[in-house]
């Protein structure tokens, strides 16, 4: 192969020498959005199977998720370069734009979580709500109860859409070679479910809830391992652009943080801890959920950063 020397006369901020337009705000938004998606999926799926929330942590999870998604949207807002025009997202629906889908899905998240949360409250909380807010609260609680099953299915659907969207926001960008994979959608959804379960496991749950959540956490992590494998094999077995992108995680610049933080610390160690705790019949520690949260954020931060550095212009 001939040696090539390229003198590139462009130095646009944020673009050169490599694209670096998305900093911590986007991984933070994807992490919080994924976690909220996971909370919606977990809490709705568990109740649809017949298990109503018992602990206060489970009952308040949908309301906590409202706070988390607001934090995520705050991070997204900070990333906007033309902040005063943020309302423009809601004057158009562009079916070909994943970001447009995301903007509208985020609007559905709020009512879904609020109604789901109301219907999951116990008698004590309902009494307090009715005393504080009067007949309006009673009416809202009645509506939440009357339409409980459709609300839970809607929450599940919105949660899956939100989780998949956080991955497809990146996965549908052909110009960034590392991101251009359909596996990112389900991968980020599985990771979101896993981080949501980890967050719940850090809170006081009933024994039944803890046992069920821990099982779901392990299932989500195993799914994540499989999807991560599909993502990497898909890139590594592709053409020159895909192989070049895969190199970032398989020998290149991001290899060490990816394998250390995402695979070893965020997946392998929590899975091993869970297996050891189950085998030795020891009570679960808080270390495994903490590591899952670190791994979930690292996955998004590394994929966002490495993807921006993989472009056609940088191909050998």
């Amino acid at each position, binding site marked *: 192969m*001939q040696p090539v020397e390229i003198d590139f006369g462009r130095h646009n901020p944020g*673009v050169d020498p490599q694209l670096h337009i998305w900093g911590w705000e986007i991984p933070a938004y994807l992490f919080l959005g994924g976690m909220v998606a996971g909370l919606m999926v977990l809490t709705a799926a568990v109740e649809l199977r017949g298990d109503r929330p018992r602990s206060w942590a489970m009952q308040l999870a949908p309301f906590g998720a409202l706070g988390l998604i607001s934090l995520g949207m705050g991070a997204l807002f900070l990333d906007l370069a033309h902040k005063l025009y943020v309302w423009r*997202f809601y004057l158009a629906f562009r079916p070909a734009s994943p970001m*447009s889908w995301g903007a509208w899905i985020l609007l559905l998240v709020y009512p879904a979580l609020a109604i789901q949360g109301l219907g999951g409250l116990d008698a004590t909380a309902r009494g307090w709500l009715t005393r504080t807010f009067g007949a309006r609260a009673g009416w809202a609680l009645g509506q939440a109860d009357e339409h409980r099953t459709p609300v839970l299915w809607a929450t599940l659907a919105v949660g899956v859409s939100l989780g998949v969207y956080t991955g497809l926001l990146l996965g549908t960008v*052909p*110009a960034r070679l590392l991101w251009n994979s359909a596996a990112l959608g389900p991968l980020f959804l599985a990771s979101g479910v896993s981080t949501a379960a980890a967050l719940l496991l850090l809170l006081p749950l009933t024994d039944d809830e803890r046992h069920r959540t821990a099982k779901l956490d392990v299932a989500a992590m195993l799914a994540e391992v499989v999807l991560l494998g599909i993502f990497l094999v898909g890139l590594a077995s592709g053409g020159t652009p895909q192989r070049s992108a895969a190199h970032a995680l398989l020998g290149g610049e991001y290899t060490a943080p990816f394998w250390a933080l995402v695979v070893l610390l965020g997946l392998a160690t929590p899975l091993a801890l869970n297996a050891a705790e189950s085998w030795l019949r020891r009570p679960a520690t808080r270390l495994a959920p903490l590591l899952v949260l670190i791994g979930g954020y690292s996955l998004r931060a590394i994929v966002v950063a490495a993807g921006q550095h993989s472009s*056609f212009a940088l191909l050998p």
Partner: protein
Amino acid sequence: MSTRYAMVVDTRLCVACKACVLACKAENAIPEGYCRDWLVEEVRGEYPNLTAENRSERCNQCSNAPCVSACPTGASHVADGGIVLVTPDKCTGCKACMSACPYDARYVTPDGYVDKCTFCIHRVQRGQEPACVSICPTRTLHFGDLSDPDSTVSRLLRSRPYKVNHPESGADPNVYFLV
């Protein structure tokens, strides 16, 4: 057939004088430190068997523009003649278009909206050539309508071998390089 504007860059004539870059900055009042077009100087081989290619590059005004598809607000759109434009008043600065562009041809202005080459549409609508084309001292740059078989760009592409940047991106670019 509708108008399809394109640019043809004769890499055999370009001397990398950067007059196109300066003309663009002056014509479009580009902020300091930014550019809509730029020069790439590529040298291949080992001495004494060297080949050099100078390319004046810019937004490729793609027929299948991924930036337009990615834009959530419709700020990025296709105008008459296939020219891809950004409406600043609709742009949130989300940068989805920048991540979608295979050529990294866009940037965020200090005012917060995304900007790029417009083929100097304001001049084209007055019947003039883009600023970079009109100033080029070696007649490296040619601009015209690909749908017109008698246009300069159509004749050049019929008579000379050419290439486009990153055809594998699938964006169907409309800036051609004569080789």
